[in-house]
Structure formats: C-alpha cells, structure tokens
C-alpha cells in the first residue's frame, strides 16, 4: 500500500486543468485565429456522406481514453530518467484516469525508436513497473515516427481477430540519453577478451587497443539506406514542392501560436502531471514558444547551407515523452461501464522511396485511407497530421492538392485536395508540442478524439510520415454522445 500511495502522489490528477476550462476558452475565443470551432458545448453532429463507418459483421473498436506525459525538450527535467520511467508514468496516468483494474488488460504494446538496450522490450519493463499484473504479456514495436501507431493498430488487429478485448497501447521516446556504443573494433576486442583464457592472451588483446578503437559510435541520425539525414531530405522535399522559407516559418509560427492557445485554454487534456523523482512536478509541455516572423527569419538553415530553408525553428525538436491509450471492443467497454471517446476505423500503412519521398507518407496515406473508408476530404472535420518539419507539412499539402502528383506518382485520376486549414492541427502539432518519436502517434489519435468531442465533428483523420519512406493514416469516428 505504501507503493500505491507513492504512485498516486507521483501522478497528480490533472484536475486543475479541467477547472474553468470552458470559461477560459470562451474568453479567449475571439483572439484565436484561425477559428477553433465554436463553443464548448456539443455541436450537433452533421451527418456526412456516410452516417457511420460501422460495417456489419466487423467488431467496433473504441478509444476509451488517451493520456501522455508532458512532452519536454530533451535534456530538461526528464534528463536523469530512463525510457521505461516515462512509459510507466503514462501507463499509471492511464490507470488513474480510467480507474482500470490492473488485471483487466489483455495485452500491452509499446512503440519506441531509439532503444535503450537494457530495456529493449520497454513495454514489459514499463507495464511491470506501472503495477500492471505480471500475467499481462507485453511487447514493443518499432516503425520510426509511427511506432505508436503500429502499437495501436496491432491492438486493433488483436481485438478484430478475437484474441483480446482490452489493449493498452502507447509509445515512448527518450532522447536525453541515447545508447552510444564503443566502436566495432573495440567491441570485437572486448568480446575476444571475454573469451581469452590466459593472462597472456588478455594482455596481448589489451595491448592491441589503439586510439582508433576509442572513437565512439553515435546512434545514426541518417537514413540507413541513403545516408541522408532527415532534415536534409526535408529541405530537398520543400524545394521540390517549391515551399518557401516564408511559408515554412509562417506554418511554424501558426503551430506554436495554436499550441499556446490550446495550452492556455486547457484543451490539452490528455496531458497528465508527472512528479519527476528528485525534481519538480511537470504538468505542461515546455517546447511551445510562439515567436515572431522577424525572429524566425533570423535563423540560418540547419541542414542545407547556405541556401536551404529548413531551420531549427521550423523543425520539430528532440523531445522526451510517453503516451498511452486504452483501446477496447465497444461491447467490452460498454460492459465495463466506460463511455468511449471515439471509434478507430480504417487505417493504412504506406511506403515509398526513402530517398526522394522520405516524408510524403501523409500524401500517400490520406487518399488511400479515405478510399478505404469511402469518404471524401470534405467529410473530415478534424485533421491531425504529424508535423516533422514545416516544410514537410507544406510539401504534403501541396502534393495532396496537385493533380499532376496524383496522376504521376499515385496512380490516381485526380487529386483528393488539401485539408482545409481551419480544420488542421488546431491545437498545435509536433513542431510546437514536441515530437517524442515513438509517442507521437497516440497523441495524434487522442487529439482527434478530443477535438471531435470539443468541436462536434463526426470524422477525423490522422496522418504521419516516418523514416524509411513510410507513412500511416487512420480514420476516427466520433462516438455518439
């Protein structure tokens, strides 16, 4: 019981965020540009071209709840933790928020990108640490920036297949500490040293160590197949689509401004408070910095010099953070007395050339998932796209809005069109909120659910790009309130 109380004191329920939300939101409404829907009260759901995406004979799968730790710039308050600590915090937050019994989960899946070698199955370490029953199996998945999307869709698959009813999925990324390895030469020597039988053999191996052995190996920042860093590829992508520096800076500023407004209005209700051991309690994302166009214009390009357009300010920053969602079959959720937030509907994973189309996942995924669901762009009320780089977002929007691109590269007759900006990433995005690679997917899905609730829409769309030239898109349907 000591343990439990500890845990509870670590996670202050975000009650303070809830109180007065509506009032503050209404107060600020006028200053918010572009318009963030209307009012806090439930808008009447407008029936779209399809009343629902439910299919006969297919289980409805629902998002019951979604939470995340505050997303912090790497090297700040979380600096001394380990990845599973963050994941643990997210899981405990979910438990707390849903009052889910600790043995009521069938399976736990986590996504992560840069693995801490000591906790390579971070899902297992975090779930044990979070107090879940040790009878619940858990595994870890990786697919770059869409890792937690894979965690969620894996859960959807398990439910659809009738294997499970209740899934916890999540993602975690911890960039304050990354595995830096000895060089291959040194590793080889050390492993040989392990096997050496005599003192003579050991001494001769130690004697063979040279300066070159001591050069460390940093985790690759570059795409393995092309040796190009993502920022460099983003800059080329922006240039290919003729995205200007100004457009990128404007989009970055928009993201930070909207994130700040959402934070101030208390809309980011998925954020839980987290008492960091040895440090203060953290309750807010700390990367949101609305600046001015003049300030942004001063920055030099970060990757392609001197004529590039991608800068530190119009890129997402290295972030620590974790997220978690509770996914259930609708029947089970209702049986357990939950009020689901949304249905998780059709989803697709796409992949293309990792060199020249590294970050075009949303452009390829969006039309594909819409076609699967039988929806059009206009049917979507809420868009949440992962913002890796402002240039990448603008490029994807232009690709979606180009007949030539649709015909030449996607084998489509016409474009699907770009999302309307007044529906697009209205509570900020990865550029401003932060982007812990493995955790972003759950944030996107939870945000869509919350926005649908808040804004009263029916359908939402999540899309994201990922290293390796891959991408993901998912349609989310509001749960009738």
């Amino acid at each position: 019981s000591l343990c439990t109380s500890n845990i509870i004191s670590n996670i202050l329920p975000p009650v303070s965020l809830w109180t007065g939300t509506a009032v503050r939101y209404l107060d600020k409404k006028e200053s918010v540009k572009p318009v963030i829907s209307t009012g806090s009260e439930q808008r009447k759901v407008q029936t779209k071209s399809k009343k629902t995406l439910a299919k006969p004979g297919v289980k409805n799968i629902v998002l019951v709840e979604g939470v995340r730790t505050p997303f912090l710039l790497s090297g700040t308050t979380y600096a001394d933790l380990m990845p599973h600590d963050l994941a643990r915090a997210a899981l405990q937050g979910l438990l707390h928020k849903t009052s889910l019994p600790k043995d009521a989960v069938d399976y736990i899946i986590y996504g992560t990108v840069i693995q801490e070698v000591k906790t390579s199955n971070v899902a297992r370490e975090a779930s044990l640490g979070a107090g879940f029953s040790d009878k619940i199996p858990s595994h870890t998945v990786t697919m770059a920036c869409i890792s937690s999307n894979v965690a969620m869709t894996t859960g959807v698959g398990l439910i659809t297949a009738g294997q499970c009813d209740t899934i916890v999925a999540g993602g975690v990324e911890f960039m304050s500490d990354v595995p830096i390895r000895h060089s291959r030469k040194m590793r080889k020597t050390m492993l040989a040293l392990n096997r050496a039988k005599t003192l003579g053999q050991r001494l001769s191996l130690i004697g063979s160590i040279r300066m070159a052995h001591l050069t460390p190996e940093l985790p690759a920042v570059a795409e393995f197949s092309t040796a190009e860093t993502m920022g460099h590829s983003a800059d080329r992508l922006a240039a290919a689509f003729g995205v200007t520096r100004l457009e990128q800076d404007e989009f970055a500023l928009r993201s930070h401004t909207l994130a700040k407004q959402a934070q101030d209005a208390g809309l980011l209700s998925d954020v839980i408070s987290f008492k960091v051991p040895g440090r203060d309690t953290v309750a807010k994302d700390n990367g949101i910095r609305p600046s001015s166009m003049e300030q942004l214009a001063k920055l030099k390009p970060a990757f392609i010099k001197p004529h590039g357009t991608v800068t530190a300010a119009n890129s997402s920053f290295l972030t620590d953070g974790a997220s978690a969602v509770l996914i259930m079959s609708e029947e089970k959720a209702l049986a357990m007395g939950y009020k689901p937030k949304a249905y998780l509907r059709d989803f697709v994973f796409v992949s293309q050339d990792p060199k020249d189309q590294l970050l075009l996942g949303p452009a390829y995924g969006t039309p594909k998932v819409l076609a699967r669901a039988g929806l059009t762009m206009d049917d979507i009320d809420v868009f949440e796209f992962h913002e890796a780089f402002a240039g990448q977002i603008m490029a994807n929007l232009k690709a979606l809005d180009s007949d030539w691109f649709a015909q030449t590269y996607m084998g489509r007759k016409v474009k699907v069109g770009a999302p309307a900006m007044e529906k697009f990433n209205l509570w900020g995005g990865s550029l401003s909120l932060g982007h812990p690679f493995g955790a972003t997917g759950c944030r996107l899905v939870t945000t869509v659910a919350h926005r649908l609730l808040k804004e009263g829409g029916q359908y939402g769309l999540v899309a994201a790009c990922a290293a390796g030239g891959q991408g993901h898109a998912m349609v989310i349907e509001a749960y009738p309130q």
Partner: protein
Amino acid sequence: MAGVRALGALSRITARRYVLSGKIVLNSFDLSFFLARTHVNYEVKEDVAVIRMNDPNSKVNTLSVRMQNEMIEVFNEVLANDAVHSAVLISSKPGCFIAGADINMIQACNTSEEVTKLSQEGQKMFERIEKSPKPIVAAINGSCLGGGLEFAIACQYRVATKSKKTVLGTPEVMLGLLPGAGGTQRLPKMVGIPGAFDMMLTGRNIKADKAKKMGLVHQLVDPLGPGLKSPEERTIEYLEEVAIQCARGIVHKKILLTKKKGMMQKVQDYVMGIAFVRQQIYKNVNGKVMKMSKGLYPAPLKIIESVKAGLEQGPDSGYLAEAQNFGKLAMTSESNALIGLYHGQVACKKNRFGVPERPVKNLAILGAGLMGAGIAQVTVDKGIHTVLKDTTVEGLSRGQQQVYKGLNDKIKKKAITSFERDSTLSSLTGQLDYSGFEKADMVIEAVFEDINIKHRVIKEVEAVIPPHCIFATNTSALPIKDIAAASMRPEKVIGMHYFSPVDKMQLLEIITTDKTSKDTTASAVAVGLKQGKVIIVVGDGPGFYTTRCLAPMLAEAVRVLQEGVNPKKLDALTTGFGFPVGAATLADEVGIDVAAHVAEDLGKAFGSRFGGGNVDVLKTMVERGFKGRKSGKGCYVYTPGLKSKDVNPDIDDLLEKFKLTPNPSVSSDSDVQYRLVSRFVNEAVMCLQEGILNGPVEGDIGAVFGLGFPPCLGGPFRFVDTFGADKLVEKMRRYEEVYGNHFTPCQLLLDHAKDSNKRFHK
C-alpha cells in the same frame, strides 16, 4: 581459357574514357543564323538576366560557331541593359551544361593557323566574360567538359548540382589536344598547379563534391525528387533559383568573390611562389609524362609547356602559347588517331541491328569462373535479373564472392552505397541446377573451352530454356558454328567474347554465324550495351577478329625470344611502340598454356602463315609449370605482394634449347617492332578482306580496346593510312625474304599500297 581475355591492363591505361566532349554536327549550310536565336536565349528576372543555352538539334550543348555567336549577341545585350546587374548562365538540358567544343569545327580546319585562330577567338570571348562588370554565375547541371568547363571557369561564380550526371573536366588530352580557350591559364590559378596538371593531363571527370573541395565550384545544390514537376525539370529550376540568389548576393556584396585565404592556402601560395619549386614541379610532371607516354603523345607535353609559359612569362605569352600549341596539336596524327577512336567508340555504342523483339530481363550465366562472374557483375546492376550457375559449391561461392567484391570496391570508391550494393545483389541468384531456366531470356555460357563440354552444355540448356531464349557462348577461339552444330536452333546461337577482367575491359566482340538471326544479334548487342560495352560485331571463323590478330604477333614474339632478345627487352620494344603492355608480359597475363593452345589451334586452321616461333617453346614452358602469372612463373617470376618482377632465370636455359640465329638485316630494334606490328596489322586487314570485319572502324576499335593496339596510332587501319600501305608492304617484303610467308602482305593491303588514294578512313 579466361586468360586470353586477360588483356585487361592493356587499354585501361590510355584508351579508357573517351566519353567526352565531341558531338557530330552536320556541317550543312546554316541559314538560320540570320533568323531568330535558337541556341541561346535570356530572360530578365528583376535585376538578373538568366541566360539559357539549348541546342535544339542535339541531346547535348556544344560550343559550336552558332552557339558562340548567339552567346556573344546575348552577352552584349545583357551588358547594355541597365536594369540588369548580374547574370546566370544555365543550360535547359537535363544532364548537360556544355559537353565541350564542337570537334568538327576543329576538324574542318586545314592548317594549324586556322585552329590557332579558333582558339584565340575562344580566348577572347572568355576574357570578356571574365572581365564582365556584371557578375556572371555559371549554374552547372550535368556534364561541364572541355570548352564548357573553360566557359564556366571564366565566369565569376559557379554553382553545381550534386547530380551523378554533373561532371567537370578537361578531357582534351584524350583527343590529343589541350584546353585551348584559356583553360591552361585559368585552371592553375583556380585549383593550384598540381591540381591543374592532374586535371589536364589525365582528362578525368571530376564529380561535384570533389570539384567543390578543389575550389572549382563555389556552391553545391542537391538534386530534387518528385514534387509538382518532374525531378529533372524542378532541379534545373531550383539550381536557377539558387544561382539567382548568388548573383544578387555578389552584387550586394553579401557573397565576396575574394575569399579569405586559410593558413594552408597561404603556405601553398608561398611555396608555389618560389620559382625553384615550380621548376621542380615542371620537371617532375614532365618526367612522369615521358615515362607513361614514352614520348608518343605530344599533347601532355604541350599542356605543360603552355602552363609554364603563362606562369613564368605572364598571361600574354601564356595565352599565345596555348593557342599556338592548340593549333599544332590539332594537326598531329596522334590527335587525328584519338579523335578517330572517339568517333569509332561512339559508333560502337549504337545498336545497328535495331531494337530486339523482346528485352532481356532474365539472364543466366553458366560457369562462375573469372569470366562468368565478371559477366554477372556487369549485368546484375543494370536491372537484369541474373542467375549464376556453376557445377560445384566451391566454384559458385568463389564467383559470388567476386561479384560481391566488385560491388564492395565501388563502395570504397564512394561510387555506390552499401545499401545499393545489397539491393543490387538481390537480383543475383547463385545455383547449381537449371531451376528457373524456363524463364531465361538469354543464357551466356562461360564454361571450359572444350568443344565437347560446350556441346554437352548446349544440349542440357536447350532442354530447359523457353523457345525465345538466346544461347550465347563466351569463347575466345572456338568457331561458333562448331559449337552451334549441337544446337536444335542455331538461329538463336551467337558468340559473345568478353575480355578479362570483364568489369574493366570495355570491348565486347560479338560473333554471328550464317545462321544467327538478326533479332538474336540485336538482342546480344542490346545486352552488351546495357553492360556498358563498346561492341564490334564480327563474322565467324577461327579466332574471329581479336584472337586472330593477336596470334601471329605472339608467334613472332616467341621467335624474337628464340633469337635471343630477353623478355625485358621485348617488353620495352613493344611498349616503346605504344602498346600499354609489353608482349612478354602480355603472354604471361594471357597464360602461356592458353597461348600455346591458341597458337596450335589457329596454326592448324591457317597453316604455315601462323608460324614463326616454335610452339614447342610454349609447350615446354607449360610442361615445366611456367604458365604465366597464374602459376607464379612464366617469362617472369611473380612474387605475391611485389609489383616489380624479374625475368624467370630458368627461361634462358629453356630458350637456349630452341635458339635461333637472328638475321642482322631484320633484327634492329625498329625491325623487331615492325615485325611484331606488321603481322598484327596484316592479319587485321585480311579480316576485313575476308568479311570477318564489317569495316575498318570496328577493326580499329577492337584492336585498341580489346588488345591494346597503340591508341596513338588509332588502330591497325588508321595506322596503315597514316604510315602508308606502300611503306608497310616494303618492310614486309624485306621480312618475307628472310622468314617467308609469315610476312606475305594480303591482297587488300597490296591494293592500298598500289594506290595511295585508297584509304580505310576518309
């Protein structure tokens, strides 16, 4: 019998890369000169004039008279336009900035004075560019070679794309010329004296990143992928945008043209400022050139001379020396020969048999030996699925390792990434059986050179391949019709004679029989071109063309050895004539056993004409284990890891047994050289006479690229034209008196000797 093709090193040294500046322009009367501009146009974007080049009649831009005239017009207009403060020079062609000067413009001149004048006009034009009060930015995407490079370096600033197609270089030396439009004067100042010599004397292509490091370009632009336009189109647009920014930056002094010099640069400048150091460099470079070229190539020496004149006596003397030397070089037989080879190579990179009915997508290779694996290596990275089949796991694994190593070496040279290696290798299947052969479009066999084995293989293969599949045999001497005798469908049988090492040697000799169908030939040529080969298509017969020319020369070499000339001396005589590899070394590389085998086979086929040296010399060598490099001993002793080699001490002993007394009247150094060469040349001419060869161009290309015939002579046929058939016949008659029919000139050669108007090349 891979050995016969071990002539690898031969043409690698000199005749390697002729893919360069020239373009064939029809010299028709050009009326359009008086009409609107068609090659150069410009558009004013605010304060920057964007000058675009695009030759409407060609895939590449060349500095033709037309292009130059329009450029001068445009340049004058840009200078006169007060709204324009700077200019960008760019090509609208994807993959080509300017590929060089128009070779035909030079070839149309009759005297060196005319060529000198051309050079001076070019110099003048680029001087105006260099001194332009409005900065000009050269925006380079694709090849920027020869005159194109000289144009670019006359501009104030250079931006280049990192595209694989972007290469900068001064390949004039490979045409026996020099950079004649200020290149010898500007390059040393731009990239330093050693760097400039390296560029101009090797003529090698420099990639964009290297060019940036050398100081040849100022800024690099990444090629773009798909966007709202095609990648090629958008990349050029992007390059233009960046270049415009640079042009404005220069005008607004945000970009300084005089860079602050680093410490290294200052030290280097100081050192190069010492006259003594420069003298040492000239001496050193001169020595290297003489050692490599044996003084047979005048262009490198003239390049050194022109650079020296500029640096030591000032720009006026330098530019004058450059123009005059350019004029002189253009009139040399060496330049004529090299330009001939260039044109020949271009011709042999085309498929004169048309487009095959179905493209080869699946290719199977039998035998994973040196040749088989080599063929796999040049095929697998061309988008063709390649099956490598051998009979043993050991043989197969050795072959697969060869392919892997070939690709891996490219990673070390940064030509490909490890990822590209892996994905390329995914198209290679190694196997011991015939599974999957039902999908093969072409099978190339590279099994042991034994007619019985070849017959067995052809029967086995024909039992499993589909009806459309082509059966190509990689043999160096066995007549194709003898191999095809075992085939159920001789129209699908063809010879593909590769040279070893396959990945280095450019030549592919394709042999057709009377029964080979045209579509089969078209398909074989198409595959060869995909593999990057220069192709000659010849008729069937013992030794086809290349092996047949080589055999009498080797027979003569053996006789020369028997007459007491030691291997080192023999090598010196042959390399002194221009062969990249000496005759004795060549025999070791080919393999003494292979040479013996070929000598015997062709001796039987052609009779006493192929005599000369005693075949028993070779046979005895083989018996004693002196099989050449592969056995560690041949004419020389080879120690692994050592580059230098000594004459095999046992060889004197052996040759003593077969000693012949030389006849002093035909044994001077020069006579020995002509004895070797005349037999080669006579046999080549006979191949043309008998219709084995399609024409003299293919004969020259085959001899130079396959056998290392001296490139400065341009091949056996050009040699006859230049040297004079009558003079050659005269020499042969003299040798004939001593040695008999080995030196009897063939009828075609005699015809040419009789009538001095008869020439192989126009």
